[in-house]
């Protein structure tokens, strides 16, 4: 197929499955494809030390900053129930050499798995239980530390020590809908990847071992925006304790998505919540597309009859193609052609914006066979590498039929076998529909294959630890630290008539407790305070990138205004000065603002004067024009001295 046909087919299949852009999608679209999503929200806890050793938490190193490096290889081991985990077996096939870059300040012999774990950090347990209680989870009677296998090397032991703190909770959305929570666990954070090229993956160990909680929801969300709302809800709830870390990487999400007839696919490590809607939208439609592909394929042939054929392309015969591949990759490698029977028009089938089914093979070749991209081309490549004539020759050589599609890939000799297996494996999965995968996310809302989806088979009791009982008395003590039901804060905001566009900023920065204090203790108008924080403060915060004073100074500001019997309308002007001159006291700011204390009577007399001198300039002057004109005249002296809306009433 030439390029034109591939592109045409891409567009046609996009239409055939009924893909719509997210901005145009409605609930009906999501209901049509049976959108379903759940979340795993990770949140680092603000502790002094790491979870299972006494290294300090929260110090980071640059990718090339390290004191030593060491090498490990991972092997799959059995789970407690005597099974191997699919992900583990996949990772083993990649034959990766894992290199850890260690900084003495942040990593010890525990981090590199040369010392058994120290007793768990109780500061972390306390926080995890508090958040469990806030999330209405049932706290377990005994903590059992479990090993969760990770053969990608992101943890030098090959497993993450993790433990359930609470199960079966719920949260309430703004519209009153309840979302179920499966569990909350406390676990050690993993390494940060430096690079992953060929068979060598490099990590740094600074983040490794830091305490983290993971809140897992049921797949109760029915559309992409709801997923984001739930995510925000959980993150803000976590932050409401003031005992969690903030900043890039301190909170990360794994998003589970499926469509009707599809399979749970996990989008890993989404760093920003506003990526969630686009990612979940595209993933649901990708699965919808894969089901369509399956439908076409199963009509053409049966899985048990399907057989791939492959051959090496000899350089003597295909020197032109070798030249092209070498030019594209900069590498000199062996080249193989593969025939996929019955796959015609499937490789160019739409899967995601800018990706076709072809790419499902590309990314698996990179991850499993470790062949760097570009690693292949196909007869239906949207950006064709070879001319139609070359494909004709290849097709003939492969004895391919009219309904077949072809892949040509290249790679180092030792990776060819795995590459062929990988292609065959992915092709056969097409008959089953959606391969269970974890996928890596990108800002544009697309995802690529990362790993085989792990299951419960990767769990193993931690034989280095003993169970930790949680007595009722201890939990009751922690319950006292826990604020009211977090969901009620949304209701409270609605009752206070605070505009919705302020919620995100206020909850993400956890200013609710401070606002509540100002409103209750100083009897100030909640709506005004809401706007003051959610609009004024947010605006200045954004402009200045940071708040140069302690946030409690805002409370002091309102106390000052109250003491001086000044009207709160002057607060925004003072706030601006606080950003410009963080060390200046409120009195000096007022002087700076040229504020003069004037009595209400004085202002009223000025009003009367203006009233008398008001001269209409237009023919049809309304009474409102007159008020506006007078208010314009006295505003400067009035702000802070009298409430402006009351003043307007007086004028009337």
């Amino acid at each position, binding site marked *: 197929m030439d390029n034109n046909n591939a592109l045409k087919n891409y567009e046609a299949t996009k239409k055939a499955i009924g893909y719509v852009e997210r901005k145009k999608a409605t609930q009906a679209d999501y209901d049509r494809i049976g959108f379903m999503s759940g979340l795993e929200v990770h949140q680092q806890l603000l502790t002094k030390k790491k979870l299972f050793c006494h290294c300090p938490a929260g110090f980071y190193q640059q990718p090339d900053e390290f004191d030593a490096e060491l090498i490990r290889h991972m092997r799959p*081991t059995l789970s407690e129930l005597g099974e191997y985990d699919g992900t583990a077996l996949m990772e083993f096939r990649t034959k990766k050499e894992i290199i850890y870059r260690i900084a003495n300040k942040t990593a010890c012999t525990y981090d590199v798995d040369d010392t058994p774990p120290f007793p768990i950090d109780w500061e972390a347990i306390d926080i995890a239980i508090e958040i469990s209680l806030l999330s209405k989870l049932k706290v377990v009677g*005994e903590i059992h530390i479990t090993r969760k296998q990770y053969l990608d090397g992101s943890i030098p032991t090959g497993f993450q020590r993790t433990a359930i703190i609470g199960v079966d909770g719920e949260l309430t959305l703004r519209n009153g809908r309840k979302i179920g929570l499966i569990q909350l666990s406390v676990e050690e954070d993993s390494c940060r990847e430096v690079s992953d090229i060929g068979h060598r993956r490099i990590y740094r160990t600074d983040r490794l071992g830091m305490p983290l909680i993971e809140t897992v929801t049921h797949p109760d969300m029915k559309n992409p925006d709801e997923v984001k709302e739930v995510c925000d809800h959980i993150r803000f709830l976590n932050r409401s304790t003031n005992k969690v870390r903030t900043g890039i990487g301190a909170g990360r999400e794994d998003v589970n998505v499926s469509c009707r007839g599809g399979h749970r696919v996990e989008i890993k490590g989404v760093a920003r919540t506003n990526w969630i809607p686009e990612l979940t939208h595209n993933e649901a439609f990708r699965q919808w597309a894969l089901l369509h592909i399956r439908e076409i394929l199963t009509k053409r042939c049966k899985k048990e009859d399907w057989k791939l054929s492959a051959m090496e392309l000899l350089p003597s015969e295909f020197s032109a193609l070798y030249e092209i591949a070498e030019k594209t990759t900069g590498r000199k490698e062996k080249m193989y052609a593969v025939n996929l029977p019955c796959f015609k028009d499937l490789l160019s089938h739409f899967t995601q914006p800018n990706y076709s089914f072809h790419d499902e093979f590309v990314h698996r070749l990179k991850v499993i066979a470790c062949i760097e991209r570009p690693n292949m081309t196909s007869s239906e490549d949207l950006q064709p590498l070879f001319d139609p004539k070359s494909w004709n020759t290849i097709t003939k050589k492969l004895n391919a039929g009219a309904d077949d599609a072809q892949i040509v890939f290249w790679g180092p000799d030792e990776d060819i076998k795995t590459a062929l297996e990988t292609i065959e494996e992915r092709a056969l999965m097409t008959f089953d529909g959606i391969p269970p995968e974890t996928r890596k996310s990108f800002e544009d809302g697309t995802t690529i294959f990362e790993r085989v989806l792990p299951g419960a*088979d990767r769990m193993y009791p931690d034989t280095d630890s003993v169970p930790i009982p949680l007595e009722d008395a201890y939990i009751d003590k922690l319950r006292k630290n826990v604020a009211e039901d977090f969901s009620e804060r949304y209701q409270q905001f609605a009752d206070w008539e605070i505009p919705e566009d302020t919620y995100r900023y206020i909850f993400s920065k956890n200013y609710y407790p401070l606002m509540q204090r100002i409103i209750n203790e100083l009897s100030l108008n909640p709506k005004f305070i809401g706007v003051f924080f959610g609009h004024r403060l947010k605006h200045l915060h954004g402009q200045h990138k940071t708040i140069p004073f302690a946030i409690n100074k805002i409370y002091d500001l309102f106390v000052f205004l109250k003491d001086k019997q000044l009207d709160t309308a002057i607060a925004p002007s003072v706030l601006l000065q606080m950003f410009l001159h963080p060390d200046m006291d409120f009195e000096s700011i007022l002087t700076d603002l040229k504020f003069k204390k004037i009595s209400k009577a004085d202002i009223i007399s000025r009003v009367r004067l203006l009233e008398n001198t008001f001269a209409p300039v237009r023919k049809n002057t309304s009474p409102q024009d007159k008020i506006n004109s007078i208010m314009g005249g006295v505003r400067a002296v009035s702000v802070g001295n009298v409430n402006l809306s009351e003043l307007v009433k007086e004028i009337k």
Partner: protein
Amino acid sequence: MSEDFFQGYKGEALEILKKYNVRVWGTVEMETTRGNFKGTVLPRAVNDDQFHIVVKISTGYNIGIDIRTVTGMKEVGYKKANYKVPEKEFPYTPGLPHVKLLGTGGTIASRLDYRTGAVIPAFSPGELYGAVPELAEICNLDTEKIFAVFSENMGPTQYVALAKQIGKEIENGIDGIVIGHGTDTLHHTGAVLTFMCQNLPVPVILVGSQRSSDRPSSDAALNLMHAMTAAGRGNIAEVLVCMFGPTSDEYGLLHRGTRVRKMHSSYRSTFRTIGDTPVARITRKGLTPIKEDYNRRRQDKNVKIIPTFDDRVTMLYYYPGMKPDTLDAITDNGYKGVVWVGTGLGHVNKEMYPAIERAHKAGVHQYMTVQTIWGYVHMFVYDTGRDMMAKGIIPAGNMLPEVAFIKLGWALGQTHDMEEVKKIMLTPINDEITEREPYNGYLVYQGGSPEVEEFVKRVRK
């Protein structure tokens, strides 16, 4: 015997399981004052308390339920798990060397034990092949489990049995022997087998692991591959300890059984040759000698097995202010040998002298080694040393304390004649005393020095 439905549960937890008719491996729905829970009841370790029931929930995690919060429960299903390393028959490949793996227990091959909640040894060629299929490319393997004990439980009885077994295997024409062993006393066994199995025609490789094989990052697989390579293809026919060189998965080191010591309680690269260099480096590709003087592999079967051991031997680690009655008690209890671990060049305080003399007269054989681990005993440098020798303590050169203990027990198994024993003790069989200590035999670098930091950063460890 009827099946144990309540593995590990006791006291109140057992009562409540019985009350509600819930078995281990049963799927259970529980009502508690903290809410409802659902999962599979798991066995409980015997040393854990009697107030909790362990449940595996659907996500694969385990949790404990406090039975004092339970208000009701019901078994709604039953599925017993089968934890078993997949066994595959170890394939025979013509042309590859024949290696015998003797199992003694330890972390080299282990699996989960619900009884203690820790790991227990598991072992068969099939299991090993299932876990480390690469072994089949190195050798043809036969295994025999001689005993299953943790290494701290190894002792004279096991030493004798092992030595005799080695003799038998050599008689049967084996190309190499690997002994799987817990790491804590690996070096004791390394020493004792060196003394008991002399003039070896084939390698005898002791191997263990510092991370049990139920962990993805275990060193067990690589250690086994190295050991099989050394045993099947290596040319060094000695008793050697084969463990990680660096903590990285890079290469192993072969240490003489008489000069090796476990130097870290948990590090992978815990075994170090003391006072010399290791004999060789080993990778999966083969063995690279570091030392030149080693016993070459031979075709004959002329091994000399001397399986004797007198367990009336002990060690005394000297500390300031040590009272003479410690030694008196040993003498009075009929001990025949004492290995002293003295300070510095090999010293104890003057207060001990009468007790030393008394022991000597009672026929107790006394040898001096050093707490510094590195270096020789030098009892001529100070008067005290000369005094002690006069009173019957014999300096044991640079023999490691544990090695001297093992050798004395082995020697006393053969004779109690003072001169005979002394001759055995001071005539090295395989470098337990060396004539010279090379400059690079003592390397304990200190982190923080710029040149050391530079070295560590540049050379992966």
